[in-house]
């Protein structure tokens, strides 16, 4: 394997790992606020790593710039979307789960 391949492999594996964390969090977390945590964060880092792999695999300048643009937009929009969702549910009066609650 060439160094490029190893780099792509490592980055892609990292991206998949964090996406997996987001998925596990989506299943395991007790309420929607905590689920939004795991999705908004792990998903973003997963995107960073995977898109870095894409940029390296392409190797051309234009595609790298586009991957970076993609990343910038995901950085801008993902947290805002998480905010929009949690704000809407707070507006609806959904109470956050706390450790005092018995049922998870």
């Amino acid at each position, binding site marked *: *394997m060439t160094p*490029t*391949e190893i780099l*792509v*492999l490592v980055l*892609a*594996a990292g*991206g*998949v790992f964090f*996406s*997996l964390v*987001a*998925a*596990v969090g*989506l*299943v395991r977390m007790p309420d*929607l606020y905590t*689920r*939004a945590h795991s*999705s908004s964060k792990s*998903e*973003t880092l*997963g*995107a960073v790593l*995977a*898109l870095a*792999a*894409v940029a390296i*695999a*392409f190797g*051309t300048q*234009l*595609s790298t710039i*586009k*991957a970076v*643009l*993609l990343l910038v*937009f*995901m950085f801008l*929009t*993902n947290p*805002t*979307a*998480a905010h*929009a*969702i*949690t*704000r*809407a*549910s707070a*507006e*609806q009066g*959904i109470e956050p789960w706390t450790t005092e609650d018995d049922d998870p």
Partner: protein
Amino acid sequence: MIDQILLVAAAAFVGTSLVGVYRIAAGPTMPDRVIAINVVGSNVVIVIALLAAAIGEPGALDIALVYALLNFLLSIAISKFSVERGGVL
């Protein structure tokens, strides 16, 4: 070789999106589903980018770009809409 790695990674991302489908089906509340669709949308952007690299077609990055921008619209639209079932929309 790189193609293979990227394709497997793309398959893994699609696989994790399946969890999102579980969350969409199970709920229990509507914001849960919106979070899930947001995760699925981000995953789709990444999968399209990975596919673009794997099949060597930079044009597909434009599609990923469109999705990255419209996924946001989808999330804010549904979340805003679900506040009052259209009272605010």
